[in-house]
């Protein structure tokens, strides 16, 4: 067979296939639905960005060096504030003891 015979056979075949599968008409509100799907895909992308941000923060926080330094700072701050508070409590107790000795309740 010649090449031109193949071409004309293809065209015929293509024409038959087009007739056998007619292009369906678009469903109602097709365009609107397409835009809606695009927007929801955008939102999914944005939430993925949030997740990435949170992951970044937690990953940064859980780095061993930083965690160790933070824990040390917290322990030192706790000891400092606690010691100060303990001293105040002890001072108040000592004052109350002295006042109770020199000025019993009937006099106050």
């Amino acid at each position: 067979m010649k090449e031109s015979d193949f071409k004309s056979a293809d065209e015929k075949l293509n024409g038959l296939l087009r007739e056998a599968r007619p292009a369906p008409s678009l469903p109602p509100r097709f365009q609107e639905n397409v835009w809606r799907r695009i927007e929801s895909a955008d939102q999914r992308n944005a939430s993925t960005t949030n997740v990435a941000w949170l992951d970044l923060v937690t990953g940064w926080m859980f780095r061993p060096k930083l965690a160790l330094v933070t824990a040390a700072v917290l322990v030192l701050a706790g000891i400092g504030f606690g010691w100060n508070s303990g001293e105040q409590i002890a001072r108040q107790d000592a004052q109350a003891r002295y006042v109770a000795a020199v000025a019993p309740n009937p006099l106050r």
Partner: protein
Amino acid sequence: MKRSAANLILALLAAGAVFAVSFVISQRVGAKRMASTADDLDWLRQEFRLSDAELARVRELHEGYLPKCAEMCKQIAAKKGELEAALTGVTNVNSDAEQKLAELASLRAQCQAQMLRHFVEVSQAMAPEQGRRYLAEMQRITLGFHEQIEQSMSPSADHNHGHH
């Protein structure tokens, strides 16, 4: 997302727990260390930075004052007993009860005067600035209570007498 948020919350909780535990332990140790002695004069020594000589003088005054104070308290307690007996079974304040009230007030006034004299003596055993501070503080603590009551009952106070 949920896992990261949970990790973040856990990390914050752990940080809070670390701080709280160190705070509580340190507070207890600090308070125990400061209150290691049961000496009544510990507060004076620390708060008014008494030297050993000043503390010895203050201790002498303190130990001389305590028996007098105890004696006055005993007299006040006895007078209160007499007043209660005078008020038992009566429906109005009779002259006997009034006399006991006056005697009780007089005893309390004597006791307070003795206490204030003691504060003055102790303040004179300290450095002048510390002595002034001590006297002001002791007067505030021991007389302030009555002032609060009197102020709350004065006509200028917000609430009215007789409406309780």
